[in-house]
């Protein structure tokens, strides 16, 4: 299948240099991978399994806003201030992922402009995709005319 994740987005050379910094992790189902407001100093690329992103609701269970699956980037708040997670993340099934230390990656990017450019383009593409998905969900997508006017 055509890969639409990081492997497709970053050319082979810089990708290998990036992957050399990653190490494999596994999280049992139910693990809280990070919490809203926590320090965003890492990110992951999901290899297998699913992760729910959620928002804390006082006095209630966290509200799940999106599920990420295989091949997806988990976490981008490490890239820009205030370097805090704006959502929480929980493994919904056993997860295997590559974990990256953000400081190490950013340091490599300072020297490796090819990687810097490709990684930034990839993260922006991911953010754009999630923004599009969130905007689409603002519509009553499954209602008549997707909440547009029938004209």
């Amino acid at each position, binding site marked *: *299948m*055509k890969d639409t994740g990081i492997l497709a987005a970053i050319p082979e050379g810089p990708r290998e240099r990036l992957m050399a910094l990653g190490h494999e992790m596994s999280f049992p189902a139910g693990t809280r991978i990070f919490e809203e407001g926590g320090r965003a100093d890492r990110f992951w690329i999901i290899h297998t399994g699913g992760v729910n992103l959620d928002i804390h609701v006082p006095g209630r*269970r966290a509200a799940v806003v999106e*599920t990420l699956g295989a091949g997806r980037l988990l976490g981008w708040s490490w890239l820009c201030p205030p370097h805090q997670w704006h959502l929480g993340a929980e493994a919904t099934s056993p997860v295997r992922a590559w974990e990256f230390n953000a400081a190490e990656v950013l340091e490599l990017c300072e020297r490796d402009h090819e990687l810097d450019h490709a990684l930034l383009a990839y993260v922006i593409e991911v953010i754009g995709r999630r923004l599009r*998905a969130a905007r689409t*969900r603002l519509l009553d*997508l*499954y209602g008549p005319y*997707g909440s*547009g006017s029938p004209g």
Partner: protein
Amino acid sequence: MTAVPLPYRVTANRPESADTRTIELQPVAEALPVFAPGQFAMVYAFGVGDIPVSVAGIDGSALTHTIRGVGATSRALCAVRAGTQVGVRGPFGTGWDLPSAAGRDLIIVAGGIGLAPLRPLVREALSAPGTYGRLNVLVGARTPADLLYRSELDGWGHPYCGVTVDRAGPEWTGNVGVVTALLDQAAFDPHDTTAFACGPEVMIRAAARELLHRGVPAQHIRISLERNMHCATGHCGHCQLGPLLLCRDGPVVAYDRAKPLLTVREL
């Protein structure tokens, strides 16, 4: 196909969600020709009107329809009681033409009530193991309470049946997000895949864009365009979309034909 509706008896009417019901119909005497998955009937609620409704199940001459009550006629049809009669004309439209996808992987993308016309397609594929490649069913709904055919979905998971909702309550343990995100989980070889999509047009466009991006050719993406229609026989022009009369040339159209029409602001 008949010009006058034939009487059909309602044999069952069960709820699917707060505004959607599934009704089962048996011909009172003469039956209409056999419907193919993706085709639709004009179903007449006596004294109210008739509306196009896809077949959600085909069992010999018996028909199943799943109807979301949005206006006078659809609400009247949601309210029909077992034992009463409705009028039915059909079969109309192009159908999904599943047999032409023999040997290929299948991706079925359904949003909301769009799962209704895809249900007989899934059943047809499941009833012919070995004829098609891998079957992937991707279902999106607004909330868990809006999901159709819940008891059947589990049996569709070979190799993959994913369900996602836009908004979940605490009881929901499944996926949350747009239906296209489920493609990450699907097992298919894009060049050897035929995709079928039905739902709101915004969803259809998003699904087609994502499938194209992953390498599924436009002519192998079939979508059902359920624009409102009136006569269902290609005469009144009510359902015209560019050069297409959707009641006759559709509702199922290949995406290479539909794409230029769907991107026009208003047609």
